[in-house]
């Protein structure tokens, strides 16, 4: 058993690979995402993931809603009406999306790199391939395993559908397919990686929002990109999941975001649940011991 939390230099080695290849991952730069969803479609095509329902959600252009057993890439669309104070034209407010700016015109319309009246943020989400992956840790069958590339993959022939991995994931990534009973998620295209190919989603992305490569290299590239954006005055830009010191020991798939993580549906400060495993077992043990004590004590008195 490897380490349960904290920074980890080599996940694959920790998982028992002798001389693993470099850890591979994703850097998703949402500042250049155009929300084309090519990644979603390419992932489904390559991995033969079934269609996930035809529902117009009203959540901007997001009709996929979330990552799930049948959606391994999910492009979020956040419409935000904010930016500089708007001129109030005395229009009554109304409880609809967009009410905030109703009736205001003549305002600056700068976007992305500056203040704006409307911002439309897009971000392609995916399994984080955590350094300390709760899903993998809690899987009782060993169906979830760490690959030599440091990624986290489900083996569908072993999964018995116990569902444990699902609430264990601090990002709400992995899901169970109702008709099939088993859990599924992004494999980081393990089959393609073994052939030396890029994952399908990264291959399809037209803007290099999804960058695939050696995690160390990606982290450097991300730092440089962040510095560049900060230099351009995009103060809101932040890296998410890049820090090996964070609650999951850093993500194998990390992001550059243009707003707070929760705005995109990401947890602000995730922690791998097994970080507290020692404490859990100690308390379970103590409680069991107390129960034994209560049992003994119960018989200590008289019979009646």
């Amino acid at each position, binding site marked *: 058993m490897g380490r349960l939390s904290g920074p980890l230099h080599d996940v694959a080695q920790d998982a028992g690979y002798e001389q693993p290849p470099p850890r591979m991952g994703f850097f998703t730069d949402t500042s250049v995402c155009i929300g084309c969803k090519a990644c979603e479609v390419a992932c489904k*095509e390559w991995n033969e993931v079934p269609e996930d329902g035809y529902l117009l959600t009203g959540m901007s252009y997001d009709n996929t809603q979330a990552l799930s057993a049948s959606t391994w890439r999910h492009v979020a669309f956040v419409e935000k009406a904010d930016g500089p104070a708007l001129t109030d034209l005395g229009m009554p407010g*109304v409880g609809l999306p*967009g009410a905030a700016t109703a009736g205001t015109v003549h305002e600056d319309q700068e976007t992305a790199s500056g203040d704006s009246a409307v911002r439309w943020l897009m971000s392609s989400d995916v399994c984080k391939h955590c350094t300390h992956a709760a899903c993998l840790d809690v899987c009782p069958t060993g169906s979830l395993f760490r690959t030599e590339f440091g990624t986290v993959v489900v083996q569908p022939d072993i999964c018995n559908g116990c569902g444990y991995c699902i609430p264990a994931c601090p990002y709400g990534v992995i899901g169970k397919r109702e008709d099939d009973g088993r859990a599924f998620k992004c494999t980081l295209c393990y089959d393609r990686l073994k052939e030396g190919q890029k994952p399908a989603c990264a291959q399809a992305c037209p803007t290099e929002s999804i960058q695939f490569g050696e995690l160390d290299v990606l982290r450097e590239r991300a730092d440089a990109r962040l510095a560049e954006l900060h230099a351009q005055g995009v103060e809101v830009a932040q890296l998410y999941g890049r820090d090996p010191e964070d609650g999951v020991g850093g993500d194998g798939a990390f992001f550059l975001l243009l707003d707070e993580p929760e705005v995109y549906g990401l947890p602000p400060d995730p922690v791998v649940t097994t970080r507290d495993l020692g404490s859990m077992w100690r308390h379970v043990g103590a409680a069991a011991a107390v129960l034994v004590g209560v049992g003994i004590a119960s018989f200590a008195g008289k019979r009646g």
Partner: protein
Amino acid sequence: MDLQNADCILIEGSNMAEAHPVGFQWVMEAKKRGATVIHVDPRFTRTSAVADLHVPIRAGSDIAFLGGLVNHVLSNDLDFREYVVAYTNAANIITEDFADTEDLEGLFSGWDPETKRYDPVSWHYEPPARMSDDDVANIEDVQDGEPVSHEAAQSDTHGSGGSPLPWKGRRDETLQHPRCVFQILKRHFARYTPHMVEETCGIPASEFAKVADALVANSGRERTTAFCYAVGWTHHSTGAQMIRTSAILQTLLGNIGRPGGGILALRGHASIQGSTDIPTLFNILPGYIPMPLAPLHQSLDAWVEDDEGKAGFWGNIRSYSVSLLKAYWGDAATAENDFCFDYLPRLTGDHSTYATVKSMIDGGCKGYFIVGENPAVGSANGKMQRLGMANLDWLVVRDLQMIESATFWKDGPEIETGELVTEEIGTEVFFLPAATHVEKSGSFTQTQRMLQWRDKAVEPPGDCRSELQFYVDLGNRIREKLADSTDEMDAPVLELAWDYPVDETGEPDGESVLREVNGTGPDGAVSSYLDLKPDGSTACGCWIYAGVYADEVNQARRRKPHWEQDQVAAEWGWVWPANRRILYNRASAAPDGTPWSERKKYVWWDPEQGRWVGKDVPDFVPDRAPDHTPAPDAHGPDAIGGQDPFVMQTDGKAWLFAPLGVADGPLPAHYEPAESPVANPLYPVQSNPGRRSLKTPSNPINPSRSEVFPYVFTTYRLTEHHTAGGMSRTLPYLTELQPEPFCEVSPRLARERGLVHGEWATIISARTAIEARVLVTDRLRSLRLGDRFVEQVGLPYHWGGNGLSTGDSANDLVNVTMDPNVFIQDKVGTCDVQPGRRPRGPALVEYVAQYRRRAGVPEEGDL
């Protein structure tokens, strides 16, 4: 085009990120390199989201906005003067007879209210002081009233070069002459002030200033700005002039023919560029050679006369045309029989798609092929399309899917309303399954005129066949049936050079077709259009493609990755003409042949070698020195001067003012769309006077400024779907991403009409009413024009009755009013919006009729 080298990119009339995501990577690349990206669009789209600046604009008002920019440049002397003087017709002096919109309240001189056409004679250049013999002859022609532009198809008949000019004209290089183009331009655009822009487009002066400053700061010697547009400009009754306005602006700023500059027309379907080059259009032949006109062109000589011998590369038109005829009729085409010129059909009038549909309704057109399109959903005024198809004898549909155009007779909207009854439709419909692009090999020509060859990946399933096989086979069968005919009428078919090698599955060899297109001569495949001869010794299917099969090699199949090549990446695919990546690139050097700047160095004159050299194939006569002045009697390419970069133009100059060839005026003027909620703020003339309308009861037009139809709607695409939907609504992975038709509205409009996010709305025009889900969003803004607001309704147009996700077609709402140059419809119109679903069945017809009555729309159609 090389967008990545641009310092500023203005995207207007296109939602590039959504409709051209792969090409958009170069915009993102430019942005990474520091370029400013601006998006001018009625809606805040996925393109706006990553742009530096989004400017909302009222649909259909782009000429006012661009005209404002032109005015800004001219009135503040911000043009790239050296470039303008040397390379444009700014210095040309226009005849005294010319009168502008300023003088004629919104019309130009030459307007004939009877025919609703312009006679462009008064727009001509003042003849030069010293005239050549040719000039004299041409002047006589003009004075005799000999038509210089073709009635039926106007500018399109002369493709990229426009109509030939009779003479080069007199110039005043100081630009001071009151009748020189520069001064005319200044006067014409003077009324396009920031205030007027605000009143017309709903763009505040502060926003306008930002765009103007960005463009000016990123133009000149050291920097370049690129424009991108698509159908947000083309689909208007003033579409061609919108594009012309941008061309004027880009030319004034010196951004044409230079790296990171230009105007990029983002073409639509895969190879829609290819289907213009080798056209599916009625009025041109391959390589933009005009189709002969019945009244004018009764011989080969008459046909080529307009262009032949004129300055520039169109001067060699006889070689191109004769080679084309040789490609069609092979050995049968001889000098004696005018190379079978008489076998070519002649045009008698407008036979564009909408004219044909009207003819179907009127009973003139009896049979129709629908191949790779779905007009029941994709063409404006869907009802008109379906009524037309229901009135045919036969209809052939070749498609990948059972599209609405093949099933309208049993489940179209008119069946629901009772306007059509299946049993009463006499059309015999043949549906033939087609092979997809991965099931056949061939070339695609994309936006940058690049041909890329594609190999067959899988065999087509079942009875699916490629277009090539279908047409070769159809030709064979017709020829078999006619084999014994001695009727003169059948000779053109029987004598066709129709011998294509086929493989074991019966599929003709696509590369043999490409070779025919490339052209062949006595030594095999030709390597350039300069090899083509007027004497019948060469054959060529499309002169601008000559070279794609040079050295007997399929050049379109080259796939050397760009990271193994230089900036221009000349070894990926093949670009017409002559594998040249940037057209008119002589303009990337100053008049003396030196680069304008080190930073924007591209093609320049090397005095040592006595040649033009650089990164790209120079778009010029290779050894023509910058100081060369052609002899007065020189013809064709020989007549190109050393400082005439626009080698397809007879005068070698970029036309700020079009002395002929444009149907609706030598300069752009803002007119309102045929349906508009406002009065034209610029001129007393409301809509484009030259617009083409179809007068038929199924095409009624909403009156402008009607309170019954107070809102503007505009239509567009979503990344997740493809045009009329046959290729996306049928696929689960795409359908789930946008599973239902919707309309996008501003919060203010939602409040005004009580529309609820996620619920239904009914959108009504004089044609019909459709329903869609409501998305209330800040991305649609209420625009303030003076003292009123204009609300715009956004409508993706991908839906129809078939497929995994179904819904009403936005096109059932759209009217047919066309641009007079290219006969393309408006994509915008006016409407009313009401909460809830539309009436069903016959009640819908009555509902819409009520609206028409309230708005005072005459029952017989167009006003």
